């Protein structure tokens, strides 16, 4: 009974291996508003001195819970449930947190997909430095160092040590900094940090100019400073693999009302701006951090033979198939169709056999069609969409 080999096919088991497994943690599309954020401060007066920043968050529907960093009642987790969706650490000098929170607690919080804004400052404590280091950001080890830029400082009648920097070296990304161009430079006064070149998750959002360096402004330099030039990052963001987003700034003053309202003129430039770019910069960046922009979801993944509508259980070699998926972006209030021309699908078994760019109908629907390769085996449809600032879409279907 010689069994003739049947035409082998793909066993289409139709089980979704991982359709957006991460979104559910940090970011709930069902209840996207009214999210709770814990704000830890060194001093309650920061609440009023940084009120513009806090007010913009509150006006966007966030529920801020202010606490002193050494408040013994701090707890981010109760009975295994996180009480907050985001954490703002405006406590650069805190040596330790009050209550049950510690560095592991903060990292667990991020590891479970929650967002974090961390502000360091000159004389930042080891705790803050360690948290930043765990996120892939190394603050200058010299605790008295500040970023100095003698060729890129903000002109001021009263500050003469060139540590108030006017930087306009932003990341080129509309999704992170908003589509409106930042006209005025951002004022920064604080410490610089460097990024590990091997870490691909952390991005420099605001970097120093090539003439900047990080040193103690009052002592004489005998050795080259450890951080110089454009490798100094002033503000960085991290998008973790679980789509948790972290913002690390070397300056707490960046968020302050004072610098928000202050006018700015960069040395050597004739443009004088009434208002610094800080407010727009911080507001837009916080929108990104709290997933109000750049958060994608893919739904309605479909594939079928051309001319049919049902999803077949198997494809034979040389079949012509159609594939379509819908991608939406969260706009802060609703899901809007995401329009791009570089979404790609892979027909994948160990390695992609077919990789094709999807064409879009400008309404979020992406589709393509191709011929099934003449290789027998179990294939997956796979979309791996990684773009600067967008959450990573990674889904596959067998």
């Amino acid at each position, binding site marked *: 009974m010689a069994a003739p080999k049947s035409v082998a096919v793909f066993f289409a088991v139709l089980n979704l291996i991982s359709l957006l497994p991460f979104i559910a943690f940090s970011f709930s599309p069902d209840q996207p508003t009214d999210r709770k954020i814990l704000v830890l401060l060194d001093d309650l007066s920061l609440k009023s001195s940084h009120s513009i920043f806090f007010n913009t968050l509150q006006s966007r529907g966030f529920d801020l819970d202010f606490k002193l960093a050494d408040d013994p009642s701090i707890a981010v987790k109760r009975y295994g449930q996180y009480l907050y969706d985001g954490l703002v650490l405006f406590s650069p000098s805190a040596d330790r947190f009050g209550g049950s929170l510690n560095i592991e607690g903060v990292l667990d919080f991020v590891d479970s997909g929650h967002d974090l804004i961390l502000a360091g400052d000159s004389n930042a404590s080891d705790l803050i430095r360690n948290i930043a280091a765990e996120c892939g950001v190394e603050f200058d080890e010299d605790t008295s160092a500040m970023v100095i830029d*003698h*060729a890129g400082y903000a002109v001021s009648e009263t500050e003469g040590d060139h540590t108030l920097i006017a930087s306009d070296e932003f990341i080129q990304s509309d999704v992170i900094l908003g589509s409106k161009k930042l006209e005025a430079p951002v004022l920064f006064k604080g410490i610089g940090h460097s990024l590990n070149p091997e870490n691909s998750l952390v991005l420099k959002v605001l970097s120093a100019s090539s003439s900047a360096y990080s040193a103690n402004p009052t002592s004489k330099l005998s050795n080259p400073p450890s951080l110089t030039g454009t490798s100094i990052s002033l503000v960085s963001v991290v998008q973790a693999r679980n789509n948790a987003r972290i913002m690390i700034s070397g300056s707490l003053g960046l968020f302050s009302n004072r610098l928000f309202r202050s006018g700015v003129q960069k040395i050597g430039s004739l443009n004088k701006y009434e208002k610094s770019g800080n407010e727009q910069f911080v507001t837009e960046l916080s929108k990104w951090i709290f997933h109000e922009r750049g958060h994608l979801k893919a739904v309605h993944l479909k594939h079928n033979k051309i001319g049919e509508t049902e999803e077949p259980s198997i494809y034979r070699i040389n079949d012509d198939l159609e594939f379509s998926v819908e991608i939406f972006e969260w706009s802060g209030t609703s899901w809007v169709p995401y329009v791009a021309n570089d979404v790609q699908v892979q027909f994948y078994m160990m390695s992609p056999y077919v990789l094709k760019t999807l064409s879009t109908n400008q309404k979020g629907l992406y589709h393509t069609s*191709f011929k099934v390769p003449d290789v027998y085996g179990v294939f997956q449809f796979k979309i791996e969409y990684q773009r600067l600032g967008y959450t990573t879409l990674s889904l596959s279907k067998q």
Partner: protein
Amino acid sequence: MDRNLGILVAALLLVASTCESAIFNPVSESHRSAASELLSSADGSFGSLEETYEALKTFEVLGIEKKPDIRTSACVSAVKILSSTSSALKDLFHALRVNGVLKCELNDQAFPGIGSKLKDSLNGASSLLDFYYSIGGLILIKDQTSEVDVHISDADRIFRSIKALSQSDGRWRLNSNNPESSNDAAGIALEALSGVISLASSEIDSSLIATLKNDISKLFDGVEKYDDGTCYFDEKLVDAHGHKGPLSASASIVRGITALAAVSSENLNLPGEKVLGLAKFFLGIGIPGSAKDLYYQIDALSCLESIRGSVPLILSLPATVLSVTKKDQLKVKVSTVLGSAAPPLSVKLMQIFVSGSKDASVIDQKLKFDPENSVHVLETLPTNVDVGNYIFSFEIIFDEPEHKNKYATGGRTRVPIHVTGVIKIDSAEIAILENDLGSVETQKKLDLPGESAVALSANHLQKLRLSFRLTTPSGQVFKPHQAFLKLKHDSGVEHIFVVANSGKKFEIILDFLGLVDKFFYLSGTYDLQLTVGDSVMENSFLQPLGHIELDLPEAPEKAARPPPQPVDMYSRYGPKAEISHIFRVPEKRPPRELSLAFFGLVILPFFGFLAGLFHLRANLKNFPKSIHATFAILFHLGIAAVLSLYALFWFKLDLFTTLKTLGLLGIFLMFVGHKTLSHLASTSAKLKTT
């Protein structure tokens, strides 16, 4: 809290922590715009009467026009409370305060009723706040109408009962049951006591006043002080909303002592320095972000503006960065905390300290007063002031000596001054030296700052020398904070060297032999970049000098690898190249006709076979007849079914289905086959026997 407040001040002032002097500017236009921004609500009304009062008071002090709609809505609610007989003490007090500011049209009949009510509650009061509201209310009535007799007869008793709540350290308790004392309560008590003094129908016992003065001096002993002269009253009781803190406590005490100083017949001997420190504290906050804090700040400053005995005067400088090249003049402005003009006085520049050292040069120079802009001008900087960071020490001297008792100047004010200038750069040159002899191989002059693009080449046995000279406008050698030479390899590896100064010259010699290890043995083109900068150098520059071609030896095996360079983050993202599957090319087949011809050839023997059968006269005579024919036909059909099953297996069915069906067919075939064969056997046996 001390530590926290330290950060507060550091964060808010953004003052370099290195100098113990700082500049405080009086209230300015930015406060006004911030106030209008903060205190404007959409519908023109405020939450409570207390908030309304605070907003109105802030507007009044800052001189901002009140919007008429605020007036209407606030008046309505104030009059409602004042006319009602069942209003709480606190509400009455706030309503009277609002009325005091707005002068609402209120039926005068209401006042006597309120007055007697307040007096009653004053007699029954036990907690500090009750006293405060009642006395405060009575004072407000006194100000608003003259028809009501608000004088209290048993002022001594009330004074004593308020005093009974005081603590030995000058703080007060809110009521007798609560052991917690606070500075905030002290301020409230002082305000209440000043009210008692002004309402008293007879003179208060002078010994009571004396103990009160003692209390105030104790209170001031407990003030927290900073190096820069800032003083504040700390508050240990921080309530849940964060409204109470150093700011509110200090504001409360300032209100209290101002009120007391206004009514007390004798001098309170307030420590002028500490009052000035408080003023600096309120100004140092900058522009608070919340309406409440703004009220505390502005209200306290307005109190300080009019405090009797020691009105603080603030010495401020519009600019502390002065350029010697542009011949900037040093301007000093003296005003009260709210920015109004100071009495006639003169400012003297007493000493100049070089930042970071204790050396001081005594100047004792009087600044010229410019009445037009009301600033004091130092027309030319002293000759020994070169570019650099200095601390200037000023002193205020009153033209009329009796002003000394009215104003607090806090002695000498130290202000950091940055004197900047254009630094002259000359004799800049770059050279390649032979290692052993030190003889110059190539030497090029550089134009700093300017354009230069030198092209050098060197091997590891040679040296690179870069030298230049920096002089200040007055001809001194200048040592900048930043003097870096950067070598950048094509692969992105950077090396930074500090250019050190040797005597008059800045010089760096790079001995490549000692640096090959540091350079990771990377030969090739290095870009040279020189950065010279300092906070007082107006022409700080970053200039590419050109490039140097280095010929370094091969790396030994153990040499360190160059560090990985950051990947360009934009290139990390982006679409990947498309992949399309290359299908196997179908095998080459002969044309159709040929295949058909061969098919015909293959099938031909079959026809031959049939023809042969016919030729041999094959017959089916032996085919069973009658009932046995059925079995024979079924048998053959069964065989055909098995064959077609095989065909199905080829096309469609899997092994399991095929085997199952095959089993069933097999049983059937066995049965019919046995029947047929047994019939055939019996027929042939019959033939044999016959």
